[in-house]
């Protein structure tokens, strides 16, 4: 593995593929190694999630190190939900010292949706402020306190955005704030409505963001009608348009999973045709073994060495 593969691919303008890797609820390092082995040859990097959905898991820092040992480049997610500014900055330093090449900074889900709804929500900083603090730490060698950092870290800074949530007219501008604060790449919420996404991309281009920040579109296969319902009503911020719902409900129950994969492949291909989309981020929880098929059928990914800008 080469550290900085994602950075190099983005810099070269190659269509990148990242995937989600959720750490286990347990202390088994093998759980990460097994998922990493499934994804290793197919993706540029994996996002190691940080107590995703406010459910306790092995920490994203440890998960990132384990992923790295298993031969896949990590993107360490770090949320503002569980840590104040001291803990956030010390984890960012730790990631630097342990050679984690990418961090993804986000506000995080509210604990109310997790397995500890009784927890104190921290939110000392928001996602924009955390991005800002990280950039200052890396580029100016300063903590938020103004004190110098002896050896600044060198990770690439990522952020997230949801092009589909209201107020939609503000969503590209919100990304502009993150870019001003220091975000160098952004991964989006699941794209099921490519038209709305394309309109958001038009706003993003109008603000001149693609030259400063690489846009990676979030995608994932719907595996069942139950999963579809969960995405529509159980997860805040996911927008599934009616035509997608009709399409998935219109097939026999035993073929929904297949139809979900077809839809995911088509979505990736349409996204690859949108100017300035730098890659896709695959979220396939518990379906890591299906990721290679999706990547292969979509005609993208490191193995096929596609032309810059994605497949035709």
């Amino acid at each position, binding site marked *: 593995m080469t550290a900085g593969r994602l950075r190099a691919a983005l810099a070269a303008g190659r269509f990148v593929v990242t995937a989600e890797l959720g750490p286990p609820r347990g202390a088994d390092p093998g759980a990460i190694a097994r998922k990493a082995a499934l994804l290793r040859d197919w993706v540029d990097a994996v996002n190691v999630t940080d107590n995703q959905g406010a459910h306790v898991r092995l920490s994203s820092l440890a998960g990132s190190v384990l992923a790295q040992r298993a031969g896949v480049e990590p993107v360490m997610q770090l949320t*503002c939900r569980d840590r104040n*500014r001291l803990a956030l900055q010390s984890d960012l330093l730790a990631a630097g010292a342990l050679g984690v090449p990418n961090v993804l900074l986000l*506000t995080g*889900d*509210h604990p*109310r*949706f997790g397995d500890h709804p009784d927890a104190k*929500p921290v*939110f*000392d*900083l*928001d*996602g*924009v*402020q955390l991005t*800002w*603090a990280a*950039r*200052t730490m890396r*580029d*100016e060698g*300063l903590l*938020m*306190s*103004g004190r110098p950092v002896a050896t600044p870290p060198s990770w690439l800074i990522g952020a*997230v*955005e*949801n092009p589909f*949530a*209201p*107020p939609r*007219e*503000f969503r590209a*501008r*919100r990304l*502009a*704030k993150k870019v*001003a*604060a220091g975000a160098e790449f952004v991964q989006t*919420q699941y794209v099921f409505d490519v038209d709305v996404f394309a309109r958001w991309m038009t706003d993003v281009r109008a603000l001149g963001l693609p030259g400063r920040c690489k846009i990676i579109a979030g995608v994932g296969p719907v595996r069942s009608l139950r999963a579809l319902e969960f995405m529509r009503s159980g997860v*805040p*911020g996911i*927008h599934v348009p009616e035509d997608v719902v009709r399409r998935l409900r219109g097939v026999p129950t035993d073929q929904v999973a297949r139809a979900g994969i077809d839809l995911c492949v088509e979505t990736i291909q349409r996204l690859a045709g949108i100017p300035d989309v730098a890659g896709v981020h695959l979220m396939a929880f518990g379906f890591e073994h299906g990721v290679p098929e999706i990547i292969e059928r979509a005609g993208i990914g490191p193995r096929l060495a596609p032309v810059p800008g994605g497949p035709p």
Partner: protein
Amino acid sequence: MRSADAAPGGPRPVRPRLAARLAYGVHHLMAANSLYRGLAAWLERHPHAVRLFTAGERAAKEQLFGCRMCGQCALPATGYSCPMTCPKQLRNGPCGGVSRTGLCEVYPELRCVWVTAFERAEAAGHGTDLDLLQRPLDHREGGRSSWVSYWQGRDEDLWVSAEGPAPRPSLRPELPLVPR
């Protein structure tokens, strides 16, 4: 009225009870000048007076905006919709969990304060306020009068333009590490 801090479950979205135009107008009337600066300086020298003044500010802003007395008022830059009533207390815009109809993900029966902020600021011609970078809060200021801080010029850098030379996130890293 029950204090916002005593409300169960932490911050809950509050819909402002003062029209945005009126709020901008009030702010204009109370904009920092030498008179207010003098008043603020006098208040800070008189603990009883500043306590009374702060109690009045709290009562008024709690009624009108659901104020939680963070002590570093963002209202003039958020269409007078208080970001501290967001369950995540986001100062820089809405999270990604806003429902299709503009409702809060944590309290789905309540409107997202940033959707309200966007509508109010845009309608009042203050839309670009939302593009400003809001600095992290100084939690030592909690419970203090934001008006007094503002008149004394201490809140001048609460938010900065996202354009131009890269600013630093902390409001006053040069200040001593002990509270005032």
